[in-house]
């Protein structure tokens, strides 16, 4: 039994067979990656560690919006222990650049919720690098930058 709805959705996305034609396949891969990005947002909102674990490679490098460098273990621990309680996590815009076995997603991420009893809002530009490993996409690098321009 899956521990969470998000984890189940991620499994579905990861196991959908790819189309045979290359053009359609590329489009299908992009759709798959965007679905995984959205699942990531859901997992953050629900602080769903199991779902996040499925999305990331063991060797993930994560750079948070304040420049903190984290490993996968650090990141998962930070999501769980964070004083921030996100009520709404959305990507306003996402673009996928697809290469052979590699995808780079760039987008704008907006998170709002409550932190120490006060409302907060973050708006960041993110860059995620995904690798295809045995027909599954996993994230190996993720970086966020606060939008200040």
């Amino acid at each position, binding site marked *: 039994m899956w521990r969470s709805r998000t984890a189940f959705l991620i499994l579905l996305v990861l196991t959908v067979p790819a189309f045979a034609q290359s053009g359609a396949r590329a489009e299908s891969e992009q759709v798959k990656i965007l679905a995984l990005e959205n699942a990531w947002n859901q997992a953050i909102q629900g602080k769903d560690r199991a779902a996040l674990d499925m999305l990331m490679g063991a060797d993930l490098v994560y*750079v948070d919006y304040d*420049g903190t*460098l984290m490993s996968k273990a650090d990141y998962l621990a930070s999501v769980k222990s964070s004083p921030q309680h996100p009520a709404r996590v959305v990507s306003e815009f996402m673009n996928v650049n697809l290469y*052979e*076995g590699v995808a780079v997603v760039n987008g704008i991420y907006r998170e709002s919720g409550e932190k120490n009893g006060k409302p907060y809002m973050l708006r960041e*530009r993110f860059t995620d*690098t995904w690798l295809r490993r045995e027909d599954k996409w996993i994230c*190996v690098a993720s*970086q966020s*930058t606060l939008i200040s321009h």
Partner: protein
Amino acid sequence: MKPLALVLTLLCSAPSVVGAQPSGDSAARSSILALEHAWDQALERQDIKGLADIFDNGLMYVDYDGKLLTKTDYLARVKLNKDNFQQVVSGDLIVQIFGSTAIAVGSYRAAGTEGGKPFVRRGRFVDTWILEGKNWICIAASTTSIQH
């Protein structure tokens, strides 16, 4: 060809050009480290040709203020020299190799002047490289100001 552009051409195809090299991941790691260093030098010298050789045409670059730049945008910005970089130093560089993909993570310190006023910026970057033929090219780069 400017000297740095020549160095970059050699670095991009290092394993086949420079003779006996360490094999596998170690050779790839050395190439990426050298390219990252060359990138810093090219910025200081405003070597547009050298930089252009490093990047894929589909490069997505996120600047420290969250601005998204294409390869053309980025090169134009370097050419304009608004930041008047006098020194760019990268440190704590880690390179992870995943077959024909490499992730480089490091910190940097950039010093220059903007609007006549000196500035120093500290940031963290993540660069994604792919092996295209015998050359490593950068397909994505992102920087974040270090605030702690």
